[in-house]
């Protein structure tokens, strides 16, 4: 087969996958929110309300620091929401959609991609709304919007890799779903949303820097308030996590696919 023919096959495959993911996204949206009431709006409202609530809570309670507590916690929460939103739904992704596999060009990763795109786009939309609101309220702008966007993208990718693994594990062992649910709660206090690494004693810093989300939160804060503190993050370390979770996760999905008994 010539190189050109191989390219043509890859292009055809990519087009088909694009079509499948598009169809799955529309289906997911229609099914999750229905066509009535606030409809698709819920997608944005949920992270927006939760993020704003947490931001306001800290705004009123915290002593003033170099950082606006609202900016710190509300924006941070949206990043956490990407993680939570993708992972909490991961264990239901296969049982809820496996009948779709009767359509031969629907694959397990496609089902995840469609959901993750929806989740990430919604959170990115909320992030933009929040940043605009902050600009209108007190004229503050992030020092580096690119770093903020990169943090968002890295968080979505890391969550995706973990979601592949998570869903495969939940399929293999039922109780894994409940056990893993607890992990998202654990990540909330230690995952980097509530602190900056430089606030911690050195020995604690060394421990939390093993957690990949801590690096992503530091990148976010660097993008928001860069010059006001010393950010600590190692992007190759985060990339390593993303690559390893994707490789392991996609392999696990492949094994899972063979074990799914369609009724």
């Amino acid at each position, binding site marked *: 087969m010539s190189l050109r023919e191989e390219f043509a096959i890859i292009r055809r495959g990519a087009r*088909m996958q694009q*079509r*499948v993911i*598009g*169809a799955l996204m*529309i*289906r997911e949206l*229609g*099914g999750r929110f*229905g066509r009535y009431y606030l409809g698709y709006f819920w997608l944005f409202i949920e992270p927006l309300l939760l993020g704003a609530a947490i931001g306001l809570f800290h705004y009123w309670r915290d002593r003033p620091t170099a950082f606006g507590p609202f900016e710190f916690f509300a924006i941070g929460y949206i990043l956490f929401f990407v993680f939570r939103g993708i992972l909490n739904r991961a264990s239901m992704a296969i049982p809820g*959609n496996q*009948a*779709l*596999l*009767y*359509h*031969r*060009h*629907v694959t397990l990763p496609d089902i995840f991609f469609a959901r993750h795109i929806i989740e990430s786009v919604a959170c990115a939309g909320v992030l933009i709304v929040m940043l605009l609101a902050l600009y209108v309220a007190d004229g503050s702008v992030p020092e580096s919007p690119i770093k903020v966007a990169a943090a968002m993208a890295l968080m979505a990718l890391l969550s995706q890799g973990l979601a592949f693994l998570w869903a495969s594990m939940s399929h293999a062992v039922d109780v894994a779903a409940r056990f893993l649910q607890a992990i998202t709660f654990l990540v909330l206090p230690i995952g980097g949303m509530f602190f900056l690494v430089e606030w911690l004693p050195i020995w604690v810093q060394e421990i939390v820097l093993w957690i990949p989300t801590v690096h992503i939160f530091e990148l976010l804060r660097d993008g928001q308030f860069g010059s006001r503190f010393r950010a600590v993050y190692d992007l190759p370390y985060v990339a390593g996590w993303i690559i390893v979770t994707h490789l392991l996760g996609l392999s696990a999905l492949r094994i899972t696919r*063979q074990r799914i008994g*369609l*009724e």
Partner: protein
Amino acid sequence: MSLELINVHKSYPMISGRKVVLSGANGHISRGEKIGILGRNGSGKSTLVRMFAGVEAPTKGRIKCSMSISWPIGVSAGVKPTLTGEENARFIARLYGRNEKRTVEFVESFAELEEYLRMPIMTYSSGMRSRLSLSISLAVDFDCYLVDEALAVGDTRFGRAFAERIERSGLILVSHSPALVRRLCTRAAVLDQGNLTFYDDLDEALATYNAL
């Protein structure tokens, strides 16, 4: 264009030992053929259907397929009960790269669902559901239709319209009902204890099946 089975083995693990569905099946189904596959309950018909549909791999051997085969019609295949018939038709049209509007129009004229087309699937009777999924698959236009079990294709207005439409394409009907196979198919195979035997003569196949 055809579907070809080359020494296909299929078994899956049970609590004790393995359940054998196929042990070395060979066969050839050409485009446009209408073939019935008869098997008693528990003989592995559904597994066979999934292999024909290309969503389950054989344990050993190969299935070579050079025509488009529908998803198994009669299973719910990802129909979302909260979506309407029309929305589900649009979803399938998008999935298979067909024109959405034409797909919906075809389903509208074929499925006899009237205003139910705009209602959520969960309000449908089982007959309405199978008419909907059959109509959607006909709109996609496959070379060969893979139909699993008793559907609303009996001797009704819809059933006759379906039989007429299927004349233009192929059919693999997996069933335990000899009468349905006789009405819609020209050839048949019998699945029994891991053996899939093709018969060119319909009567011979039905006689073998009845003697099981």
